């Protein structure tokens, strides 16, 4: 059975206690191709609680907004998005809102499997808003990207552990969050985040996150990406780093006390990296 009504946090947590589990499903697929100077939808399929919206465009690139109509993810839910950008086309994907990962009953985590394919001379910007992990949440997520030679990728994933301003504690978390990049059939980059147990206690360790409650991981893969490194380093505060892992691959990690301060560092970085406007949802 699908849940179609967006929940706020409080009502969701209350209604779930003792209730029979309802599992949300959502799958969406998008293919973008180039027609003259414009990037246009070539194929689109959506089912369940995963929707794609297409706001009025301001550039030749296509903007797509992902919307989870179930209002969040809990244990046993399954979501997937697949986007393919064909030769010479360009698309930016973002989300309508921050994704909320709610308390999961013991057992299965919520599964998210996202697949991106970027053809030669195509561009894909994967800029979902933050993922907020609440206490007792469980998430198993994979972002898997296949990039053709000459393709361009900018991918950013942000994790927020509870909302600090709301005084939320995040004691128990199960997190598997993977970002894989393949080129010519070979795994060239893989970020595998793995966190179990008392998230707050681990984040508070000076060597792990120094009390931060927000982090961002940003991957840029495009020909000559390493030329960006000096500019990026100038923009980053002490709690952030960037490295040109190869000539065509740059990786950034940022930690911040909360989601607001994360955006203060991240938004200018994304604007620099996007070579154009970033989704309005990202503006502070």
């Amino acid at each position, binding site marked *: 059975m699908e849940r179609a009504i967006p929940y706020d946090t409080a009502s969701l947590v209350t209604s779930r206690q003792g209730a029979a589990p309802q599992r949300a499903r959502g799958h969406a697929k998008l293919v973008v191709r180039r027609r003259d100077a414009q990037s246009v939808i070539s194929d689109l399929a959506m089912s369940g609680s995963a929707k794609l919206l297409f706001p009025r465009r301001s550039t030749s690139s296509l903007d797509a907004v992902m919307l989870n109509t179930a209002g969040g993810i809990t244990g046993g839910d399954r979501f997937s998005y697949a986007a393919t950008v064909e030769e010479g086309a360009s698309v930016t994907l973002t989300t309508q809102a921050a994704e909320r990962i709610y308390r999961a009953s013991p057992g299965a985590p919520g599964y998210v499997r996202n697949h991106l394919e970027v053809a030669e001379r195509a561009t894909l910007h994967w800029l979902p808003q933050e993922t907020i992990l609440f206490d007792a949440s469980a998430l198993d997520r994979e972002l898997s990207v296949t990039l053709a030679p000459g393709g361009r990728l900018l991918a950013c994933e942000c994790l927020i552990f509870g909302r600090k301003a709301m005084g939320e504690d995040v004691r128990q978390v199960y997190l598997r969050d993977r970002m*894989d990049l393949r080129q010519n059939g070979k795994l*060239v980059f893989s970020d595998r*985040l793995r966190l179990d147990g008392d998230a707050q206690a681990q984040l508070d*360790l*000076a060597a792990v996150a*120094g009390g931060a409650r927000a982090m961002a991981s940003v991957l840029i893969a495009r020909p000559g990406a390493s030329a960006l490194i000096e500019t990026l380093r100038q923009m980053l505060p002490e709690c952030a780093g960037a490295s040109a892992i190869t000539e065509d691959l740059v990786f950034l*990690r940022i930690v911040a006390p909360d989601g607001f301060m994360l955006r203060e560092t991240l938004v200018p970085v994304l604007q620099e990296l996007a070579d154009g406007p970033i989704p309005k949802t990202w503006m502070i």
Partner: protein
Amino acid sequence: MTTGIDPHLILHQLFSPAFPVGAFAWSHGLEAAIADGDVTGAASLQGWLTAVLTHGAGWSDAVLLSLAARGASLAELDDLARAMTPSAARRRETAEQGAAFAATANAVWGLDLPELCYPVAVGGAVRALDLPHEHAVRLLLQSFLANLTSAGVRLIPLGQTDGQKITAALGPLCVARAAEAALADLDDIGTFSPLIDIHSQRQEALQPRIFRS
């Protein structure tokens, strides 16, 4: 199996600081953690090393070695080990030590290991020489920590005795992680060490710097 030689002696030789992998040149980002004031003395150094073992590359390396020693595809493990490095310096750290390890092990014991990331190369040798792999993982972790401790002793600076106390204190954690790694599979690999990653990225821009990572 190399007949007539105690496998423990071979393991101690492989993980001895005298085995020419050049470990002393790499700080895994610790140099930047010290420069940024995040590691300032014995207690914070021990905390940093504990995080490397518990949340960082120590755990992933332990599983990579164990899987290689248990017969998983060295080429696939090597791709993953390389792909998981969060910075260019960390990629060179594991790739160059692995290449040096393989070259020496090949020359001494007649193995045919290709150039592999360090824990994968070690796992390949452990398998080829039929050495006890859980013990190998303990020694991998201890030698990794001891090398970083010695970097910390020089950079902070700390007394040699303080350094040895840290290595001794972390022994039980090396044993515990090795036991878990012996049962782990590919999907158990992963880290949650954002500041350790960030420090390895920041170390690349540190001026002046002594270490190569």
